[in-house]
């Protein structure tokens, strides 16, 4: 390679400040202000990547975010970031960059052998090879293909850096700070409107450093500097660089990413690496400019072939020279200007090839350059570094070439016109309109409060953009030839259209031949434009080729709609600080600290933390829950049930309302009594269960499951607001206001009697399902005699701030009976022994009849879901119904196991436990027509762990079927 630094210093770099960095482990040096790409060019390293599919050598192709080739991974371990475009990576001391898609190394890539198989890897390769031959072959090949393909690897380590999110509000948001963006800002600033000017680059000014001529008498660079200074003096103007607007969403909301510390070794203390901005804009000015369009010819992906204006930027901004012997291939006047500017900066442009038949006489020429008008480049070659190109006379009408000649070059700059960056406009749903003059799409009329200006709408020159300024001697407008796909004499020509996804003209031909002709089909079949660059450099050429194949015009072939993100956005930035413990809220009960102090192993139940077991020294989880469950059966235990949903239902129609939403009767629940109820969804399936306590004529305290607390409240609010606005009922969540604990076991009454005053605990004073108010010292409690465990049991509720004091008072009162705190595991054991349903059985697919509660449903009234629960499918005899299982082999069962009767899969295991009461491993299950399976033996199979267990089908009530223990 022959890249180098020019004598010309470069606008953006400071040659007095060298910077050391590494690429693929090799040390290089650059200067402050360099990008990774400019420094690599200056070091003579043009090749930076292997291509995605064929692993062909690829070089730096552009100087901006449109870069299709030079994708690199930055940093390592938790800070590793794949798929960064080298031209947008700012250099810093110690930057550690790596190539991608190359194995074992960039210069010796075993996978390049894929090129030999390229006839196999063409469009539709995956579909053809794997869909037809079945899954087995795919599984065999998948490992190899996944290794060979892919765009760099994500790190498996946690990212140590911070990412933030913020909201911004502005009257006018201007996206892009080139001549159009700056002019818009200058026009709007005096109005006092709140203006936000954002630019994705490090420097404001867009294309201005490379523009020729004068603006109001100053050269464009100076004009840009003066304009920026003026704007910075306005209090109402905010300017943000390194900020990419990636999405344009509803209600003029923009998504943007500010690269706060990507240019630093590590972010400073408390500084985020990137910041996500949600910008609420009254009006949006889209001044996102244009990018240069490539030519398509044999070997056009050889390192050393690149966009012409990009080469000019490298020279002008970084003093980086792309080659010693440079050719430039154009189809428009602007290419000449670029060639002459390059020469002025010291880049040795020797040949200009112009595809047009003739040029205007007044087009300035440089005596040091040989002009080959009416010629085209037909091929470029050199493998890892461009060494020669072939050119030939060209007949644009017949699309034929004459005799080829070979020219030695080490850089070939291409410019086939400009493509407006209409991405953000397109995201709003505005159709694209084809502009014949510039052979490209521009945005149609705005559907919202936005306006596009500058190159986005095809205004490519300073005099077209800056209509209110005096512009003299500006660059000429690029009016390109329609044709960009060059003929070739080589039968096996490799002409690439989409570099990043390795899609060639051959692939487009195949897609066309096979009938994938609409632009949407072509895109999906060939994957063209679907890489991380969204086809920024390839879409227009592909459309032109497609239109040519079909014999129609480009606008007839159509264009696809752009979608967010315009540029890839890191997941970490979208997550912001909502990671780890901040991913969702953490809810702790008032007794949390007590649990932690007493050996609790906690488990997440939805957003709540609940004790799973309280381990004693040397105990396993199984040991602990067996001990806890046995303590409840033999004496007394206490469990924290604060996480249950609690809803205050008040109003004259409260009973009527509950009677409509519960499947069983609620109209006549006496004051001071609770009732267990089941709610259905409108479609007839079970929704939730819980108890509702009648506190007065007009007030109920409803409890719900932990998981459905929010859903039940919303559904009640929906019915009261939208369906029965006439009912005089109000509901409010009081889950946070009350702490709850269940005290269960034969010694539960003895325990509570000692500590709760003003409650008569006799059978008559507090009967089963009775609710009473009491006091523990001066702390108010509500006591309800309810049981989930099947033992005599009480639920005790108290205002949240008394929660831990009440808990400790009950613990103290229970000392004499060796009261045992128990967790969710023992809670599960006790309810499974009793055949009570919980989350695994209430899975949204079961009816009341399925779980044996069919008789509970009232036949005397209508309630939510009462009609639809009678649908044919919901009353079918072959429905899966709940049964109990006992392990024949005395082995633990796994929830989720499939149950086989012979070879028929008839259902699955829902909940499992070891039963200390039965001294057996037991489970609840849902199986087809369960009542007919009693006494049968089934096989419980869990293929993921290769486990099989023989199980006996029994009634789901394993223990105390008569319910005598409630009164022990």
């Amino acid at each position, binding site marked *: 390679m022959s890249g180098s630094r020019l004598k010309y210093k470069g606008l953006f770099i400071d040659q007095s400040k060298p910077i050391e960095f590494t690429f693929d482990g090799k040390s290089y040096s650059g200067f402050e202000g360099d990008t990774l790409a400019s420094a690599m060019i200056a070091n003579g390293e043009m090749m930076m990547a292997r291509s995605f599919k064929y692993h062909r050598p690829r070089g730096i192709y552009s100087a901006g975010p449109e870069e299709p080739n030079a994708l690199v991974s930055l940093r390592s371990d938790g800070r590793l970031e794949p798929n960064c475009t080298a031209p947008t990576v700012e250099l810093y001391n110690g930057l550690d960059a790596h190539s991608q898609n190359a194995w074992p190394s960039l210069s010796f890539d075993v996978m390049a052998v894929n090129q030999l198989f390229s006839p196999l890897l063409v469009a539709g390769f995956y579909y053809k090879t794997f869909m037809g031959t079945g899954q087995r072959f795919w599984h065999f090949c998948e490992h190899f293909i996944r290794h060979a393909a892919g765009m760099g690897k994500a790190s498996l380590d946690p990212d140590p850096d911070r990412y933030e999110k913020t909201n911004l509000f502005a009257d006018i948001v201007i996206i892009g700070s080139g001549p159009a963006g700056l002019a818009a800002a200058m026009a709007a600033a005096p109005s006092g409107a709140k203006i936000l000017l954002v630019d994705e680059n490090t420097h404001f000014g867009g294309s201005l450093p490379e523009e020729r001529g004068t603006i109001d008498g100053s050269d464009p660079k100076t004009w840009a500097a003066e304009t920026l200074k003026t704007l910075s003096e306005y209090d109402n103007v905010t300017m943000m660089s390194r900020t990419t607007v990636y999405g344009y969403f509803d209600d003029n909301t923009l998504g943007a990413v500010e690269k706060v510390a990507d240019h630093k070794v590590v972010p400073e203390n408390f500084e985020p690496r990137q910041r996500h901005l949600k910008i609420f804009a009254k009006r949006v000015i889209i001044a996102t400019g244009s990018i240069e369009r490539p030519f398509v010819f044999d070997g056009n992906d050889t390192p050393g072939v690149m966009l012409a204006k990009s080469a000019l930027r490298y020279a002008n901004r970084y003093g980086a020279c792309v080659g010693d012997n440079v050719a430039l291939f154009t189809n428009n006047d602007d290419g000449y200007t670029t060639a002459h500017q390059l020469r002025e900066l010291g880049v040795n442009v020797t040949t200009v090839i112009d595809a047009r038949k003739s040029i205007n006489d007044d087009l300035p020429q440089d005596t040091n350059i040989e002009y080959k008008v009416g010629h085209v480049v037909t091929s470029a070659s050199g493998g890892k570094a461009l060494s020669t190109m072939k050119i030939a006379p060209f007949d644009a009408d017949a699309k034929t070439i004459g005799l080829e000649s070979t020219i030695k070059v080490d850089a070939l700059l291409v410019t086939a016109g400009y493509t407006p960056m209409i991405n953000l406009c397109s995201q709003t749903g505005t159709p694209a309109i084809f502009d014949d003059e510039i052979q490209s799409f521009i945005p149609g009329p705005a559907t919202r409060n936005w306006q596009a200006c500058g190159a986005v709408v095809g205004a490519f020159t300073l005099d077209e953009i800056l209509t209110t300024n005096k512009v003299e001697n500006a660059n000429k407008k690029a009016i390109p030839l329609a044709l960009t796909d060059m003929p070739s004499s080589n039968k096996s020509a490799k002409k690439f259209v989409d570099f990043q996804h390795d899609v060639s003209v051959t692939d487009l031909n195949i897609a066309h031949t096979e009938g994938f002709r609409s632009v949407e089909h072509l895109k999906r079949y060939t994957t063209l434009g679907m890489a991380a660059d969204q086809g920024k450099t390839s879409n227009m050429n592909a459309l032109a080729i497609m239109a040519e194949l079909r014999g129609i015009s480009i606008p007839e072939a159509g264009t696809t709609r752009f979608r967010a993100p315009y540029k890839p956005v890191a997941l970490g930035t979208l997550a912001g600080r909502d990671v780890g413990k901040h991913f969702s809220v953490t809810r702790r009960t008032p007794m949390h600290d007590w649990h932690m102090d007493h050996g609790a192993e906690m488990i997440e139940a939805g957003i709540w933390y609940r004790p799973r077991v309280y381990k004693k020294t040397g105990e396993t989880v199984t040991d602990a829950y067996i001990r806890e469950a046995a303590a409840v059966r033999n004496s007394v235990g206490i469990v924290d049930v604060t996480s249950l949903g609690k809803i205050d239902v008040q109003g004259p129609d409260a009973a009527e309302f509950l009677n409509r939403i519960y499947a069983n009767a609620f109209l006549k629940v006496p004051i001071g009594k609770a009732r267990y109820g089941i709610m259905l969804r409108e479609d007839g399936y079970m929704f939730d269960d819980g108890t509702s306590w009648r506190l007065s004529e007009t007030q109920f305290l409803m409890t719900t499951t932990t998981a459905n607390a929010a859903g039940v409240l919303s559904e009640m609010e929906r019915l009261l607001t939208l*369906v029965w606005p006439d009912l005089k009922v109000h509901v409010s969540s009081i889950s946070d206001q009350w702490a709850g604990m269940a005290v269960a076991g034969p010694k539960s009454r003895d325990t509570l009697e000692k500590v709760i005053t003003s409650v008569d605990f006799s059978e008559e004073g507090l009967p089963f399902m009775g609710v009473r108010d009491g006091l523990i010292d001066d702390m108010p409690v509500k006591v309800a005699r309810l049981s989930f465990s099947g033992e005599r049991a009480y639920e005790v509720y108290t205002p949240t701030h008394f929660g831990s004091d009440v808990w400790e008072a009950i613990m103290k009162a229970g000392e004499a009976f060796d009261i045992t705190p128990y967790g969710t595991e023992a809670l599960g054991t006790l309810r499974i022994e009793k055949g009570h349903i919980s989350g695994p059985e209430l899975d949204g697919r079961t009816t009341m009849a399925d779980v044996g509660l069919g008789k509970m449903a009232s036949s005397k009234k209508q309630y939510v879901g009462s009609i639809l629960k009678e*649908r044919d499918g919901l009353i079918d005899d072959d429905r899966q119904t709940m049964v109990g299982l006992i392990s024949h082999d005395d082995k633990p069962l796994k929830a989720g196991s499939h149950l086989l009767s012979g070879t028929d899969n008839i259902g699955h295991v829902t909940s499992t436990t070891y039963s200390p009461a039965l001294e057996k491993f037991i489970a609840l299950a849902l199986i087809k027509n369960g009542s007919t399976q009693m006494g049968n033996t089934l096989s419980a199979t869990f293929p993921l762990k290769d486990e099989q267990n023989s199980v006996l089908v029994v009634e789901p009530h394993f223990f105390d079927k008569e319910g005598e223990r409630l009164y022990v």
Partner: protein
Amino acid sequence: MIIKCPHCGPREASEYTYIGDATTKRPDHNDTDMDKWNDYVFLRENPRGAHAEHWQHTSGCRSFVKVLRDTVTHEISGVSLEGPWQVEDKS
């Protein structure tokens, strides 16, 4: 998308929960015609363009609002309170 709550002012859609089509009408609670219940629970128009739908301001005042929204452009042309607390949108 921003929905203007009659109580709380303009708020982001993420504060709301989508409830469903506002044009469906629940059969009388005591109606036993299964076809009517089937229609109410399962059958929906899927209009391209103007649509009336219910949203609940779950992370705000919890009221239910009827939102007139264009399903193509997502443009909202009206928001009104539902239920016994219905008030005129004064803006």
